[in-house]
């Protein structure tokens, strides 16, 4: 079964990085819904405009867990501006690919990150990411 997933995906699924919650997080985002079977929750801690820490919790399939894990790895240590350039494609590439039916998981991961940053910016500046609103993940 796991043949459908790359070794990188399986690695992040077996040993997910950054699982958990951050108390008093600077930014928090939650995307997805039970109908489509994936829910991702993302927490970030920001210090000197850099993402000092990121944590997640995910209800979902192997790909949902692996993309959440990889997405948190990709943004840790990055500036807010750099983290905002993260796309679902970069998550997929970092995982050496995903089966086509699972690409929506990477979209969810990108949105979870953006949603957490949006929350942070709203708290800091009173307005969120310019021109961004969370996608509707109803299917």
């Amino acid at each position, binding site marked *: *079964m*796991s043949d459908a997933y790359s070794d990188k995906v*399986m690695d992040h*699924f*077996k040993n*997910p990085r950054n*699982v958990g919650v951050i108390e008093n997080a600077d930014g928090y985002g*939650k995307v997805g819904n*039970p*109908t*489509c*079977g*994936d*829910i*991702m*929750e993302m927490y970030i801690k920001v210090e000197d405009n850099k993402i000092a820490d990121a944590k997640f*919790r*995910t*209800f*979902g*399939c*192997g*790909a*949902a*867990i692996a993309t959440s894990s990889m997405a948190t790895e990709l943004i840790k240590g990055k500036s807010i501006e750099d983290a905002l350039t993260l796309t679902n494609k970069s998550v997929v590439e970092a995982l050496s690919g995903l089966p086509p*039916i*699972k690409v*929506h998981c990477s979209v969810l991961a990108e949105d979870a990150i953006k949603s957490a940053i949006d929350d942070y910016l709203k708290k800091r500046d009173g307005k969120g990411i310019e021109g961004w609103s969370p996608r509707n993940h109803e*299917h």
Partner: protein
Amino acid sequence: MKRIYLDYAATTPTHPDVVEAMLPYFSEKYGNPSSIHSFGQEAKTAVSQGREQVANLIGAQPEEIFFTSGGSESDNFALQGVAFANQKQGNHIITSAIEHHAVLETCHWLEKHGFTITYLPVDKNGLVKPEDIKKALTDKTILVSIMHANNEIGTIQPIAEIAEVLKSSGRKIYFHTDAVQTTGAISVNVDNLGVDLLSMSAHKLYGPKGVGALYIRKGTRIEAFLKGGGQERRRRASTENVPGIVGFGKAAELAKKELEERVKHLTPLRDKLIKELQEKIPETILNGHPTERLPNNVNISVKYIEGESMLLNLDMEGIAASTGSACTSGTLDPSHVLLSIGLPHELAHGSVRFTLGRLTTEEDVEKVIEVFPGIVEKLRAMSPLYKKEG
């Protein structure tokens, strides 16, 4: 690592005796049963024997057995064949919401060709109520198709009671049952069940893949499914799958002989797995009927976590199971069966099915009971839906 196969509802390992019976029919006795020479005749004899063995398993006459390529074809054949042969009598068909897709999608197709279909709901245990069938009958009803047991949740339907309802209607209404999960698993007798058509598949009862059969009661009006030859009494043309039929026959013979033994072996293993998983893992739900269920079926929903991630973890422990979660079906919707019994989406996504078989041991079941709670705990710790008590 020892691998543990608990997906017998998907397919079964071919019985060694079945393989042995089939082997001569590839390269030694390879004749075409339609040929009049001795090569053809020995193949024809083998097909006749297979037909008798399959008929014998379900209490039918050999001439009522029509070999097909499998359960899905049998379902397509039964529904299309009866619908079109009887459309002068009416265009209404009754089925249930939890049928196999081979029945449901054939019904959807028939709707495009002038037929009206009633999809009956089921109760929380997955049972069709015979009185619902009675209420759904119209003077246009020509066919009812209700599966004998559900492949996902294992619920066994009151087929004989439904047959009584149809008989007392005073009109000829054909009754089809998809018995793919029950033939060889529990007692299946076409007269006791009161059905006119019954679908079977060899690979679910330790036979080979690619062969099945449709039982068609004598006198049933049905159109041919494949045209172009005299095979299967002109109703299903195509050169017979001789090795497959031989294998199916042998598997049917073994099933008849071992049926009681198989039920006796599986039922306590099933009950142990259900009981201990529910004891060891809080907040799990047994899907399907608590008692009217296949002796090998365990289907549970585990709250707060998703099915595929459970399957991947089980697979890492060498355990093969199945799920009704969307994530393995190639669509984004979870199982129609689990939604039909009233499960909310997150519980339908959180289902795991273990189906046991003749090679399953008590140690196999104990291994699942040993490793599964840890898998659940690990995934729940990761889940935003889970709030640990206390």
